[in-house]
């Protein structure tokens, strides 16, 4: 099993979600995030004093998936969140040792 985490632009969330759902992904977790990478911050000016805002609002998506489907999901997320400009985000994948469905107690891939 794999856990895929993606930090993407908030406005790309609908596209990414649509792509994952058409592939057959049944569940995902979405949370708000703030951060920066190569994307530069923006500057606001109040009475001549400058404030640089360099933690941009982002969205974090987490998906648990089986090993076979993992690379496809990464490709879908990358394709659907790419705008070609700085600040598009990152996607990464890590190994998951175990997953349990709380309601039924099912374990492993059956719990996904």
């Amino acid at each position, binding site marked *: 099993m794999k856990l895929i985490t993606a930090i993407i632009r908030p406005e790309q969330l609908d596209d990414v979600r649509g792509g994952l759902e058409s592939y057959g992904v049944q569940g995902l977790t979405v949370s708000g995030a703030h951060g920066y990478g190569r994307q530069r911050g923006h500057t*606001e*000016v*109040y*009475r*001549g*004093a400058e*404030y640089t805002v360099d933690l941009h609002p982002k969205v974090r998506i987490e998906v648990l998936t089986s090993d076979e489907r993992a690379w496809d999901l990464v490709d879908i997320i990358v394709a659907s969140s790419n705008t070609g400009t700085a600040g598009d985000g990152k996607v990464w994948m890590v190994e998951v040792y175990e997953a349990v469905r709380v309601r039924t107690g099912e374990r492993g891939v059956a719990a996904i």
Partner: protein
Amino acid sequence: MNTGDTAWVLVSAALVLLMTPGLAFFYGGMTRAKGVLNMMMMSFGAIAVVGVLWVLFGYSASFGNDVGGGLLGNPLQKLGLAGVLDTGKTMPLIGTIPEIAFVGFQAVFAIITVALISGAIADRAKFGAWMVFAAIWVSLVYFPVAHWVFDFSKDANGRNTGGWLGQGLGVIDFAGGTAVHINAGAAALALCLILGKRKGFGKDPSHRPHNMPFVMLGAGLLWFGWFGFNAGSALGANGIAAFAWINTLAAPCAAILGWLLVEKLRDGHATSLGAASGAVAGLVAITPACSAVTPFWAMVLGLLAGVVCAMAVGLKFRLGFDDSLDVVGVHLVGGIIGTLFIGLAADPNAPAAGQGLFYGGGLELLGKQSIGAFSVLLYSFVLAYAIGWVINKTMGFRISAAHEAAGIDISVHAESAYDIGGRISGSFHPLDGNPAWQHAVPAHTESKVDA
């Protein structure tokens, strides 16, 4: 008594009272989200404490018979507004309006002056200490200075018995450039020196204004109220009021343009905070001058105030004092500009009938205006510093570093302005232990309720 004049002054008084809640929005929007309620509470606190003291002895100390040298009115003469009420038999008049209407109109001037000071100490002053400061400062500084500037009493023989600046020296201050703006600005400078800088001053990006629409709303309410402030100071529904009204329109308009021009050239952007600040700077500057200069000179004054105040607000970063919301840069600087400008551009044909340098009056009026501006500045600064110092040494003026970090709204008022996303955890306890509410609580949580 003239009912039209009375109606106008009563409406003006209500307009000026609205300025203080307007100021609460103006200032509140400029603070960060976790300090907005405290900022607004300092304005509402000023309304409460000054309103009470004004009725008790403030009016008497400002406008009672002079007790010596034009420095103070007799605070005991009209204690509790004795002798000024309309009892249906003998109604004391000031000009063409009942004295009690004048009492109300002047009360709201005292209130807004105190509230203005609070902009210098955003996010870090104990609310109780602020209320104590407001009570002492208004008693020891505002009431006497209002007497100096606004009391034009004469005795039965027509001799001057009013304040030493307005009546004695002949300083022109129509609606309060000295008594209100320089007075508040100097006290603000003293207080921010006593309290010190906010944690992260000049560095922490969270100190930027949290709600610009509040700032624009507040500036709009201030301007609306200011028509009562300036045009109401004619104490009648007449041509002088209309003259002041037009100047109250013209000067801020030019000041907005001046401020925005500085911003565009210096920073590259004309901002909404700049427009709001420019309007206020222009209003401050025209306040003393609105019966003394023609609308053309009012616009020149406004433009000058907009440009100079826009440059002055950056001084705090260079000089290292945290005048958080620029009371010094806008009110002290703007008040001085407006008060001195009268010495240059006062038109003998305007209602105030002063003769400025440009109209062949020489330097005499400018000299008088300078004495007026700097005597009030010095008196207010020294007294405010002393009062603030004593409060700081006794009850403490500043909240703890932990409370400042948590936010003054939560730590001092036990409230928060915004509930974004809802409370994720916690519990709710009505403080009065309402029995009807307890019946509605499921049994397993009942033990948490204090009876």
